[in-house]
């Protein structure tokens, strides 16, 4: 059995760990509110953008000559995967869930004999993927300096993706991120952004639009913007998910630490009691033998 002194030290150390996790939980809760707010505020933009593109692609007359970003290159040989994770750890299963989802997808692609290229956004994803898929990672981006997800950063990623697409480096692009459902549930998502996947969505309005300039030109201007918008949306969802995940992880950690302190305290009291009893027995038996 550990000595009284050791137990005391352990209790103190668990208590200080508990303080840290508690503080992290509070910070995450405060950040979560902000992240959630900006995720909600960002939704109208991407929804409207989607709507306009839907209207446009339905209005397009010549499907054959539609921009490549919309219709694809006509083949599916090289896949680009943008895996979006956080830059910081201690957020429960947040990063591992995305990685797990992404790895499943990677295995499928490689099984089919297709080529795979990976861009990682966020250093945690890069850390986890580089061991197995190190040679497939072509780019690693990290926004450690930016405090909140901002459009400027998303635009940088978007422009890079488009550049690579135009250079013919890949045919299909998928982004991986966590969709924020609520504090305890985040759903890892794989969303295909190139070519744009509009199947299953019916245009609600039959109304025809006037386009100025013509559809093709608007589309070719709009589609690159849509890529950045989708990435930005993923970033917002991700940052809300990260904080939510961290909050519940830290909440659990705080509770576990509390349980551990209780257990250790009982053990401490018991061994203190045992020591006292032992001393008493020694005194009594000593007195009796006289």
């Amino acid at each position, binding site marked *: 059995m550990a000595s009284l002194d050791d137990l005391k030290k352990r209790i103190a150390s668990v208590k200080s760990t508990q303080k840290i996790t508690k503080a992290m939980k509070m910070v995450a809760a405060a950040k979560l509110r902000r992240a959630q707010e900006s995720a909600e505020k*960002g939704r*109208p933009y991407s929804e409207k953008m989607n709507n*306009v593109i839907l209207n446009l692609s339905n209005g397009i007359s010549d499907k054959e000559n539609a921009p490549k970003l919309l219709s694809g290159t006509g083949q599916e040989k090289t896949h680009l995967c943008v895996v979006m994770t956080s830059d910081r750890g201690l957020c429960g299963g947040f990063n591992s869930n995305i990685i797990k989802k992404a790895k499943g997808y990677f295995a499928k692609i490689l099984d089919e004999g297709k080529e795979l290229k990976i861009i990682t956004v966020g250093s945690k994803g890069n850390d986890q993927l580089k061991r197995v898929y190190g040679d497939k990672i072509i780019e690693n981006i990290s926004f450690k300096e930016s405090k909140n997800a901002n*459009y400027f950063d998303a635009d940088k990623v978007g422009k890079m993706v488009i550049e690579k697409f135009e250079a013919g480096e890949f045919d299909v692009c998928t982004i991986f991120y966590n969709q924020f459902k609520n504090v305890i549930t985040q759903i890892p998502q794989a969303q295909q952004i190139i070519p744009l996947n509009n199947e299953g969505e019916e245009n609600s309005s039959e*109304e025809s639009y006037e*386009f100025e*300039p013509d559809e093709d030109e*608007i589309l070719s201007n709009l589609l690159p913007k849509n890529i950045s918008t989708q990435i930005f949306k993923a970033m917002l969802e991700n940052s809300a998910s990260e904080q939510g995940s961290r909050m519940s992880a830290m909440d659990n950690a705080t509770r576990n630490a509390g349980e551990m302190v209780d257990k250790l305290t009982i053990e401490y009291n018991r061994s203190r009691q045992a020591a006292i009893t032992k001393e008493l027995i020694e005194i009594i038996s000593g007195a009796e033998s006289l």
Partner: protein
Amino acid sequence: MSEEFKVEIVNPEKSFLVKDDVSEVVVPAFEGEMGILKDHISIISFLKPGIIKILSQSGDENYYVEDGIVEFKNNNLSILTSTIFNLADMDKSKQQDLLKQAEEEANKTDINDQSKYLADQKVEVLKTLN
């Protein structure tokens, strides 16, 4: 019948402005300025750098935009843009900063014609503000 319609400006971060007593909006569309009144035909167009003028009952407002898309449908005007500033909130130093950025961009030699054109537009518009 009133001659008012609704305008909504959204940027990626948030819904920037919602107004429903607007009588006319002038947007810098790619092929020239375009005034939109109530019951305009449904239209989609995109913007070049310029000034959005919103005329309404509660006062006129001017915004500087660098890019964006306009969609008008059922007397709802949606403007999607990533860079927008209210001219009333914009002071001289901010203008100068933007102008400097735009000029730098316009003076680059390795850009294509379209971005060159857009950068020139920016410079022109910002100069007229000063």
